[in-house]
């Protein structure tokens, strides 16, 4: 039977999840944080299951995090880094999906440079799929680990004031994060130059600021986004120097936030571009390392739930097939 508290086959995004489902995943993740901090660090929840990391885009952190999560649950893990040439990327995508599906994996963790590509792949397979980041669309496990970090530090999400700063336009992290935070009752501000703010984003429920000093006023959380230079076509910002001057996080701008405001960053950081080392490494305020740690726990929770649901799904479809 599928997990009644989280009955979805896939985790393709935060959009469509309700607060109970999000809390359920966060509670489960909390338990895995304890497991990870114990000496043994392992569970046999997914013994004999197969998890495939299918990455169409370079990644070290997310892939390692998924790999570690799967291994700590006792699963077999295969890493596939698929080089995407500019021609016939999509053929590779559907072909790869069909090929992998024939090997009966339980869960695929997929990253792809195109928005919607993970959903396209999920439609072609029988196993569970977790979106490890698709284009500028969503990165749900990142949003969950950010939420877990905040919840453990602040004891809640509801009612907090969160600023998401920087390249919102190209950021899947920003989308997943504000969708999750709004669902959980937080207030979200986005702060960026107008060239990096997606059109009509205010209609999704966020407040839009273009001045760091005003936007950071009294916030509980400061989330910095990476300036994704590899996604930049055309001139969004004139120079790194100018960007840092107006939108980089330093002590002075941070002073606008609440004195106990947390600093977060999904990594990898561009020091001196969007964040000053001085604040990034401030042990009192920065929870950037903790985010990485909790990421493994969140992915353990997600993989466990999806693997269970995948087994239930295949059991029912097998029954249907034999019937």
């Amino acid at each position, binding site marked *: 039977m599928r997990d009644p508290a989280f009955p979805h086959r896939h985790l393709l995004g935060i*959009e469509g999840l309700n607060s109970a489902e999000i809390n359920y995943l966060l509670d489960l993740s909390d338990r895995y944080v304890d497991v990870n901090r114990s000496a043994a660090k392992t569970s046999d929840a997914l013994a004999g299951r197969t998890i495939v990391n299918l990455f169409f885009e370079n990644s070290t952190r997310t892939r390692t995090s998924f790999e570690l999560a799967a291994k700590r649950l006792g699963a077999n893990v295969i890493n596939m880094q698929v080089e995407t040439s500019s021609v016939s*990327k*999509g*053929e590779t*995508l*559907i072909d790869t999906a069909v090929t992998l599906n024939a090997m009966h994996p339980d869960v695929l963790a997929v990253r*792809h440079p*195109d*928005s*919607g*590509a993970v*959903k*396209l792949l999920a439609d072609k397979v029988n196993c569970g799929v977790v979106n490890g980041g*698709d*284009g*500028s*669309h*969503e990165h749900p496990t990142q949003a969950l680990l950010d939420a877990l970090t905040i919840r453990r530090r602040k004891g809640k999400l509801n009612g907090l004031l969160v600023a998401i700063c920087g390249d919102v336009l190209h950021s*899947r992290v920003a*989308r997943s994060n504000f969708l999750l935070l709004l669902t959980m009752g937080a207030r979200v501000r986005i702060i960026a130059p107008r060239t990096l703010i*997606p*059109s*009509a*984003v205010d*209609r*999704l429920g966020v407040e839009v600021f273009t001045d760091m000093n005003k936007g950071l006023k009294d916030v509980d959380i400061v989330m910095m986004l990476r300036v994704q230079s590899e996604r930049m*076509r*055309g001139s969004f910002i004139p120079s790194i120097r100018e960007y840092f001057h107006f939108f980089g996080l330093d002590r002075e701008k941070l002073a606008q936030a609440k004195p106990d405001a947390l600093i977060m960053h999904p990594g990898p950081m561009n020091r001196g571009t969007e964040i000053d080392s001085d604040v990034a490494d401030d042990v009192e305020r920065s929870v950037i390392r903790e985010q990485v740690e909790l990421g493994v726990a969140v992915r353990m929770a997600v993989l466990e739930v999806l693997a269970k649901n995948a087994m239930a799904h295949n059991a029912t479809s097998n029954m249907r097939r034999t019937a």
Partner: protein
Amino acid sequence: MSVAKPGRIAYINARVLDPASGTDGPGEVLTSGEEIVDVGKKLFDGKLPADVTIVDCQGHCLSPGLVDMRVQLREPGEEHKETLESAARAAVAGGVTTMACLPNTNPIMDDEPTLEFVARRARLLALTKVYCYGAVTKGLQGKELAEMGLLAEAGALAFTDATRAIADAQVMRRALQYGATFGLMIVQHPEEPTLATGVMNAGEIATRMGLSGIPREAEIIMLERDIRLVAMTDGRYHAAHISTSDSVEIIARAKKDGLKVTCDTAPFYFALNELSVGDYRTFAKLSPPLRAEEDRQAIVEGLKNGIIDAIASDHSPQDSDSKRLPFPQAAYGGSGLETLLAVSLDLYHNGDMSLIDVMRRLTCAPADLLGLEAGGLAKGRKADLTIFDPDEGWKVIADTFVSKSKNSPFDGRPVQGRVLRTVVDGRTVFDQLPAQSHTGEAKRATAR
């Protein structure tokens, strides 16, 4: 295919719809050979001549065959997507008896031999009538003018760079000027390419889906610029598939100012909006992109008040390999020939336009724009006819299309209006008219 000369055929018991003459009522049409010889309420007064084949229209509509002024061919060059034959068969299944095709074939129709190749192949097929646009610029590169005068002599109806905008203002100015020398119409894909770098309409939906947006201003800016150039050159300009409310206003103003400006739109833009992109549905990835609901409503309004002159299918066949891709990589375009009539009739069924007015946009209006003697039922005209039931309901199932490509954004949509018979030059080239008990002779009307 054998092309037998048809004899005299009487289409009786019809609702004759001829927008060119304003006729809408019970009537009969008599054709002889390739031509219409008589149209009237009651032609035979009860005594039918023995040599006449009777086609009982059973009260269904009989109109001039549809004239589709914007169809993309894939032959020569991409026959795996559509051949001339599959396109022509799809056309007649859709009631289209004349289609004007874009020059973005491979090789490109920027010289006489390619144009003549297509014309000859189409003649041999003897299904729908195929006309071609010539390229405005060599290789559709937007730089040097193609041999427009010679292409026009070889049969090019008008000139366009197909799915590419003529972006360079100086080139557009010269194209309008040079075209005016010979009275040629320039058809623009109105979209500023430097703004149109996204994959769907810019706005809330695109933001939610993480897809890069094409702002509606890409179309608006190009239209405004072009209108200035038309005023400057006194050229003849036609904007294809307009999709925004501002576009309708711009065209309205240009017409009011007496400029030689016309436009068309496609069913996509009055029957669908950006929500059709839904869960990354690549069949709804079109160029221009599907817009917001307010824009869709403005396009309906533009058709109602006649600012938009014609409806064209904008048929853009794509094979499944080009569409079964992540949304940003998928090809643009939708199949349109076989749904042109039924989806356009939404305008009638929704109470926006009268039936004859919808048919005008599909027949004589585009024919007049292209200078074709088509789209009317006058005596002496070629017998290009469409018999259809405007009310019959059916569901679009793209897999059953005659066209080789099944990329319809209307897939699964319930529609009303079915083509029952299509006649080109007096010959029946598509027939789904139920068998007639009226007379055994009626069967002879079926050419294939």
